[in-house]
């Protein structure tokens, strides 16, 4: 866990140090040569803005790579899985099994790779450009991109919940009463996507509680940790950007603090997309385990 936090916090910490140095230089230049204020602002925004994109674009690239791998995995493994399950006899009567989810998982991954990642990068760029030339703002376009992506994510998650709970075989395990306050906390305090996190937690929780007797609870926990660690990575990065924005605000240029805030917002949307991908990874892994169990006659 600490390794993950250290790996995530490293680049934003360096970025923050760079922002402090650049801001100090800009403030000194403003004091010494006030007639070049415009140029100082431009250089500050270009240098700090280019540096600020780094960790954010890294997170988007990680997501892009993950989605690409998942697409390959789905296209390769799903026909085999589906055929194997049908051939194993009685597999279709397994609880929690719903072929329609294939469609949504695959669709989510393809849409995630083809549309969401480019749109997120465009949203970063538009935020940056509207800070660079404040007279020509693109803030509403980037806000609309974020809102549209969040809408798409919420529809996909709603479909997951619908299809997975449609079999009626799944219910929250006994820990649900304990989980409610945590869900309420998350929903209120994680900006923008708090309710998505709790909804996905609900879906994955329902699914894994149904799967635990078949696949083994330790394996399920291991799968959950593996598939959710990219989500934690992106969520931490988003919060670090918000922190940098908050810490920069007293001394840095106000456009810079606003820009970091916007990057943080966009990364929260990315985190929502990562949740879908994490669920897809989890789902594929669990289905593979079930298939092996069914073929081995232990299902």
């Amino acid at each position: 866990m600490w390794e993950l936090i250290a790996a995530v916090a490293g680049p934003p910490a360096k970025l923050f140090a760079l922002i402090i140095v650049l801001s100090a230089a800009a403030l000194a230049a403003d004091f010494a040569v006030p007639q070049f204020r415009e140029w100082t602002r431009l250089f500050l925004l270009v240098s700090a803005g280019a540096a600020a994109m780094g960790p954010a674009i890294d997170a988007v690239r990680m997501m892009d790579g993950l989605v690409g791998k998942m697409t390959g995995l789905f296209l390769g493994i799903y026909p085999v899985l589906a055929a194997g399950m049908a051939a194993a006899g009685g597999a279709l009567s397994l609880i929690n099994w719903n072929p329609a989810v294939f469609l949504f998982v695959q669709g989510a991954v393809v849409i995630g790779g083809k549309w969401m990642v480019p749109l997120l990068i465009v949203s970063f760029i538009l935020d940056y450009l509207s800070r660079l030339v404040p007279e020509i703002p693109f803030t509403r376009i980037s806000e609309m991109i974020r809102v549209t992506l969040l809408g798409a994510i919420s529809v996909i998650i709603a479909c997951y919940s619908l299809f997975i709970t449609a079999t009626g075989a799944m219910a929250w395990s006994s820990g649900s009463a304990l989980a409610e306050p945590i869900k309420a906390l998350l929903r209120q305090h994680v900006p923008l996507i708090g309710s998505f996190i709790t909804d996905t937690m609900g879906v994955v929780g329902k699914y894994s509680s149904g799967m635990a007797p078949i696949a083994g609870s330790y394996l399920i926990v291991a799968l959950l940790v593996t598939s959710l660690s990219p989500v934690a990575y992106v969520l931490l990065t988003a919060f670090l950007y918000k922190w940098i924005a908050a810490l920069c605000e007293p001394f840095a240029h106000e456009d810079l603090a606003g820009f970091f805030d916007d990057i943080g917002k966009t990364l929260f949307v990315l985190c929502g997309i990562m949740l879908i991908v994490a669920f897809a990874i989890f789902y594929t892994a669990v289905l593979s385990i079930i298939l092996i169990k069914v073929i081995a006659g232990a299902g």
Partner: protein
Amino acid sequence: MWEWIAGLIWLMGILAVTGAVLGQDERENFMPLMRLAVLLYILRLISLLPGS
């Protein structure tokens, strides 16, 4: 699409430098011209869309 975005970045960069060269007062006067440049550039996006 990516070429269009890269072009937009170039255009806005040029406008930012122009704005810094012009200074605060003259920039106010030249702003309609800058916005016109952005408008013309955005119109190019529409021609890039499929079916147009």
